[in-house]
């Protein structure tokens, strides 16, 4: 089967997301699609999958022009897609999610879930995708959820499979595992379109590479000859420094001391189990781990968002166990939260309002209960300038910014004042290489200015590049402490997977 996209154009209000894109793929090959944030990769794939309709251009399969009214048509034409944000119903079981839309039936409208379970088992045996068909999605780790997505696509007999940033959330071992699956799919004659921001992976797996910028294809590359920096430049349009430059650290006294900390998760189970560590002045400590091993709860406990069940937290020697977020803020702590849209920002508020979100109660932004919007706006404009936030004004809602710029707003707010301790969760999640470079620089300069920095990230590369010291978390405990220069991604990956 041969799939061609011809002259695809898609406009959103104010943006041309795809600009006359031509692309083709055949079964039995892996095409990698690269591009900075907002380049239009997901949009293009959504058009291919029938979710969006193109303003111009054609989708051609084996010479026939297709007319997709919705994903149903695309599925029927043999196209499957694993979305950047998983399209699973969290409260449904694996089997229910897999069969949704093409349900096996006993009789007139009555579901046959036994049949569904057998189908899931059959596919997971065939491709080594072990999952429990009865498990409820929201209780599964992301790695497994991704397997469910793949099973979903295979269950619909797709010939061409689209993967939108599938490796963003996986451990190195899971990535290896995933690449084996992809390879097997290719051997079985499936065509694969693979989107990622990780250039190393591209060179490892692609048969062909296409690069998008500002909605248009700016070039193709051959993985045999391409280099990481070459690809990065093609994506961003300027040379990018992929290395983090930092001087060796000279840690001072402990700013954060955590001892024997225990925290429960929402279900009331122990998420953090007797953890102890310190973060010192002029030091970056990175916490590595697969999502869901207690990092979220740890950070929430440290920043006053979650109740502590046992142990103590000292900040600059003062007891801040179970302090509230305000008290911790006032103790000189900056917090870049894990989920910027859920807690870091108030999307409907203007940038000014977001810039003073956690300091509005103090001079100069307010006096008594009277807000000083003038002072706030000045602060906002200062931060926009200093942190290069791309926005037409400080008075537009934060929801109007791109994800990378939203992240910059948070970083600017938190790093924009004098602090002693920085706690940053996933500081560069979903941010393109250009912005990553910038945020990493700022983190290092915070350290050099004398702050203690705690980074929590599921990106091993990021942890390796930034940290002076790395802690690996698994199942609520710290299972390893390493210095980056004395370990490797592979070794950390083993710890992250539970080996000790």
């Amino acid at each position, binding site marked *: 089967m041969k799939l061609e996209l011809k002259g695809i154009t898609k406009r959103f209000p104010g943006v041309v997301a795809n600009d006359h894109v031509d692309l083709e793929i055949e079964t039995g090959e892996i095409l990698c699609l690269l591009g900075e944030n907002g380049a239009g990769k997901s949009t293009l794939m959504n058009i291919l999958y029938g979710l969006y309709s193109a303003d111009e251009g054609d989708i051609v399969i084996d010479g026939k022009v297709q007319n997709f009214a919705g*994903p149903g048509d695309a599925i029927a034409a043999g196209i499957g897609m694993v979305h950047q944000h998983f399209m*699973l119903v969290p409260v449904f079981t694996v089997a229910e999610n897999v069969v949704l839309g093409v349900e096996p039936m006993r009789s007139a409208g009555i579901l046959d879930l036994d049949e569904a379970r057998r189908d899931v088992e059959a596919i997971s045996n065939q491709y080594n995708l072990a999952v429990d068909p009865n498990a409820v999605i929201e209780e599964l780790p992301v790695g497994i959820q991704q397997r469910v997505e793949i099973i979903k696509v295979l269950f619909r007999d797709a010939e061409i499979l689209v993967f939108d940033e599938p490796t963003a959330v996986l451990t190195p071992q899971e990535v290896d595992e995933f690449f084996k699956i992809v390879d097997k799919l290719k051997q079985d004659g499936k065509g694969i379109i693979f989107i990622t921001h990780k250039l190393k992976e591209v060179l490892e797996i692609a048969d062909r590479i296409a690069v998008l910028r500002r909605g248009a294809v700016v070039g193709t590359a051959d993985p045999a000859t391409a280099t990481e920096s070459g690809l990065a430049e093609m994506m961003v349009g300027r040379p990018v420094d992929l290395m983090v430059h930092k001087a060796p650290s000279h840690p001072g006294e402990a700013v954060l001391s955590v001892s024997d900390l225990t925290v429960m998760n929402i279900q009331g189970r122990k998420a953090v189990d007797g953890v102890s560590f310190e973060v010192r002045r002029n030091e970056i400590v990175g916490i590595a781990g697969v999502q869901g091993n207690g990092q979220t709860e740890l950070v929430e406990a440290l920043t006053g968002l979650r109740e502590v069940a046992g142990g103590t937290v000292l900040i600059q020697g003062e007891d801040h166990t179970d302090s509230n977020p305000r008290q911790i803020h006032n103790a000189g702590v900056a917090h870049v939260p894990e989920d910027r849209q859920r807690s870091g920002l108030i999307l409907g508020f203007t940038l000014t309002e977001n810039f003073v979100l956690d300091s509005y109660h103090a001079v100069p932004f307010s006096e008594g209960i009277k807000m000083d919007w003038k002072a706030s706006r000045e602060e906002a404009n200062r931060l926009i300038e200093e942190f290069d936030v791309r926005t037409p004004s400080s008075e537009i809602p934060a929801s109007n910014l791109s994800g990378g710029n939203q992240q910059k707003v948070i970083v600017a707010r938190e790093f924009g004042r004098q602090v002693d301790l920085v706690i940053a969760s996933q500081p560069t999640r979903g941010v393109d290489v250009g912005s990553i470079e910038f945020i990493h620089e700022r983190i290092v300069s915070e350290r050099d200015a004398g702050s203690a920095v705690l980074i929590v990230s599921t990106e091993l590369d990021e942890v390796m590049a930034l940290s002076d010291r790395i802690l690996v978390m698994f199942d609520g405990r710290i299972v390893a402490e390493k210095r980056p220069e004395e370990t490797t991604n592979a070794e950390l990956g083993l710890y992250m997977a539970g080996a000790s």
Partner: protein
Amino acid sequence: MGNVTAVMTRPTDSRSPAELRRSRVLAIVYLVLALLVLWAFGFGSEGSATFVISRPGDAIRVGDISVPGAGLAFVVAAVLAFLGARQWMAGFGSKTNLVLAIGLGLVALSFLAWAADGASFSLVGLLQEAIKRAVPITFGAVSGLLCERTGIINIGIEGMLLGGAFTGAIVGSTLGATAAMIAAALVGGLLALLLAVLTVKYRVDQIIAGVVINIFVLGLTSFYTSQFLVANPALNNAPIMRAFGIPLLADIPLIGPVLFDQNIFVYAMYLLVAITTFTLFRTRWGLRTRAVGEKPRAADTVGINVYRTKYRNVIIGGLVAGFGGAYFTIGSVGRFDENMTAGRGFIGLAAMIFGRWHPVGAVSAALVFGLADSLQVKLGILDTPIPSEFLAMAPYLVTIVVVAGLVGRSRPPSDYTAYVKE
């Protein structure tokens, strides 16, 4: 009880601080209730209360139950004290809510025995009435959950009930009861279509759309009542659906008359709950409906038509509410009066949330309200020293206590933001 013993043998208390706090609060509640029962009902009763559990004319007659109020109060107080102590020390784990419900039930029983001290009253009548009063609330709640399961909030239940009631009266008076039920359902469906168009097509805020439906229907039915019905009483004289016993089942003592000697709306309520429970959780329609509610984009990506699903379900919800509204006229009194639903739709909404968006939960919640309501009616004719205004508050107080105390945080099954397709 297995896990309770397991908990008790553990050396340290495994309850989280939050759980522990809740446990302590509950324990204190139990103890306070125990004292209250002892003091108010234990020392306040002299004779016995007689609960009548069969009606004149029943095929199988069962003797009345006579309960000494004071004795019962002492027993209940002792049980409550025990529950309180147990709650304080170990908690009841996953059975906490169940135990609390039982505890409150015992308090209610003791209260009844005290209120009916030295008199008799009909338990059958009480329960039968409780079921009737639950009917419109259940229809409202199920209508609400059908909409909400596909991601549309239906605040307009009250209006749909009222529209159904009005239509039921007029069509019933002119074309008869069957036509009235159909027409009432259709009017509900029509109003739901309006809700769907406004929220899905024009993306009007869902609560605005619902509030509009309520105001609109209240205004329109009142306007046409004074404009037509007052002048033409013949248009407002609908037949009433009478109660009929289901053979055999109706002869079972207590249960028979309470559950199986009712009118068609009550039986329709049983069917509604059974059918919606089955279809929501066992059929393709249900799976797709819930998928659209929980995560519309996921449903869209597997080829389910999100908009069509929303339209269909909201309209079905409207049909249910419209039919339920006919209860007020042809199911009860045969005539329409302005604003005769008197807030039942909102209570249906409460029942839906309280019942956690599940048909069985909804009907249970409606029954709790129905029971409180029917108890209030009953207590007025027993000589209690409580002023009638306070008795009339009982159903609402019970709802608040139950929602705040028993249910806690309930998570809606839906993503209510307007779904936008490019």
